[in-house]
């Protein structure tokens, strides 16, 4: 077969490798603005990724035909996400939202190869000319939840299901514990780190282990309602929804929730990119900007407790209350924040210590 000599295969192979490069030049920007989302979990996790899905839907509602969204789910935080990021960039997406902490290194790497694509990394800390970071002040929501827990816990033991010991998780645990101990100084928080953002069976097992150790309120930083279901089944005081309102899974135990609302930020970014005014920034709004919403309170919570929680929330919104106001002592006994001082943003991102009362 004369066609398939080694030389001809190499020639054809080499020529076909050049084909994708031809496509690049043709990418004139007529047509809708293409936006890509890279997510660590499925949109049906009823939590974190669901929140971003809702944000993406809000973008569609706001911009209609002017944008085209590609929403990639369940991309593991590791080398494989680099491939997904690169594919999205090559397919002509001009804004790429990477919605999990672990994507950070790969976003920076791919961003260097595609200087005209805007990358936004959620919950990250690495920025460059075309990489911005965004987050929401979940710890403000944790302070409100902590207030509720402080009033409602009878065993004075809280079970906290964490994912990875990164600053975002740590500041959430600390904000919660500080708020709870302000109400009830005997509160202890037992923390289990699952090394995963979403593993329902493990979350359920961890919930059972924590309840067996005496916890009557569960808090979580993992996505998904598995722990709440265990709380409902065991009939403990309750738990909190994470990222979304999870009361459908645990009507009696769902005390309240921290609901992530990403729409304001997403709409802002798309407007900025369309106007050509986007700059790399670290966006970190909280309850006041509407990015963190406190979910509806369970009807079994007494009115005065709801009022206390609302007071904390309003204090945070109008700036009179900072969840990290000193004096703060860490769980080894050292004073970290002096009386009257507060922890600033840089201090929050450097937080690698737990406050008094946390067993981690």
């Amino acid at each position, binding site marked *: 077969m004369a066609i398939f000599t080694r030389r001809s295969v190499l020639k054809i192979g080499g020529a076909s490798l050049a084909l994708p490069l031809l496509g690049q030049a043709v990418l004139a920007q007529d047509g809708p603005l293409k936006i890509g989302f890279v997510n660590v*979990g*499925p949109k*049906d*996790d*009823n939590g974190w990724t669901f929140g971003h899905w809702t944000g993406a839907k809000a973008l569609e509602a706001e911009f209609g035909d002017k944008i085209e969204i590609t929403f990639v789910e*369940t991309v593991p935080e590791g080398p494989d996400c680099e491939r997904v990021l690169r594919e999205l960039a090559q397919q002509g997406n001009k804004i790429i939202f990477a919605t999990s902490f672990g994507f950070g290194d790969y976003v920076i790497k791919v961003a260097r190869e595609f200087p005209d694509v805007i990358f936004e990394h959620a919950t990250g800390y690495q920025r460059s000319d075309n990489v911005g970071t965004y987050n929401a002040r979940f710890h403000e929501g944790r302070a409100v939840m902590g207030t509720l827990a402080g009033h409602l816990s009878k065993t004075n033991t809280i*079970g906290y299901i964490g994912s990875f010991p990164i600053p975002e998780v740590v500041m959430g645990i600390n904000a919660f514990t500080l708020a709870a101990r302000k109400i009830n100084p005997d509160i202890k928080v*037992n*923390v*289990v*780190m699952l090394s*995963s953002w*979403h*593993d*329902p*069976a*493990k*979350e*359920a*097992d*961890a919930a059972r*282990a*924590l309840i*067996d*150790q005496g916890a009557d309120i569960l808090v979580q930083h993992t996505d*998904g*309602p*598995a722990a709440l*279901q*265990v709380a409902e*089944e065991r009939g403990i005081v309750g738990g909190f929804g994470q990222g979304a309102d999870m009361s*459908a*899974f645990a009507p009696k135990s769902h005390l309240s929730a921290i609901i992530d609302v990403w729409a304001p930020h997403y709409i802002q970014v798309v407007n900025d990119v369309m106007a050509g005014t986007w700059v790399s920034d670290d966006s970190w709004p909280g309850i006041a900007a509407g990015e963190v919403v406190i979910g509806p309170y369970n009807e079994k919570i007494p009115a005065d407790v709801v009022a206390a929680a609302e007071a904390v929330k309003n204090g945070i919104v109008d700036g009179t209350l900072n969840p990290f106001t000193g004096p703060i002592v860490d769980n080894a006994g050292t004073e970290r924040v002096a009386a009257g001082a507060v922890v600033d943003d840089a201090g929050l991102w450097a937080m690698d210590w737990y406050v008094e009362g946390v*067993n*981690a």
Partner: protein
Amino acid sequence: MLIGAVVAFAVTYTTGNPWLGILLAAAASAAASMIFAFLTLSLSANQVATGLALTIFGTGFSALFGQAYTGKPISIFRSIFPEALATHPLWRLVFGHSPLVYFSLLLVVAVWWFLKKTRAGLILRAVGENDLSAHSIGYSVIGVRYAAVAFGGAMAGIGGSCFPLLLTPQWAERLTAGRGWIALALVVFAAWRPFRLFGGAYLFGLVMTIELYTKASGGTKNVPSEFWAALPYLATIAVLVLISLRRSGHSAAPACLGKPFLPTN
């Protein structure tokens, strides 16, 4: 396991009957395992590669099939014994478990009895030890292996159904989170014996629970929880070393494990 889990959840959610869910989960997984059987037995494909391919397929298929069922809660498959016994502080150790747990215990005994005491079990073992001899006596090696794969598939499906029916009553993508892989270590640890398997399985489960409990009580300062997570695999390695030291060369594994059946005539 994931195919079993998604089918069990879907059926239990739609019909409200967990027994039917488990039955159909077993059937669906057995059917999926026929893909593996066809590729490895009739087409003599590499078993490890085919097994991996089926795992990846099952993950994707269950995610696709389960999209309609996420976010829907069902109730846990509870003990069928009367409430008083099932929740009694002492007796619930015996009566408080879900039927799935009792089934697993019965299954160990049933499989042991089948392999040791029945003719069919003897044929199955023969086919695994020396397929050419079994073939020359006249037994259908491929046929027996098809049946064995179907049984294994059904069992994996029932194991998978434990996740949405027992552990966490919801469906989410990748619900089993790779927990099935421990079966590979378990089979080696048990040296392919049913009762040692029972002991090994509970031992591994105990170690996994200790891992969580030490984390939950905040007692990770003395023994890191990662030690408990690694322990089942360390134990398996230790057992492997012991087995190969004791009987020089004689392994407990079936002699034809992993080898396709290729009759010379």
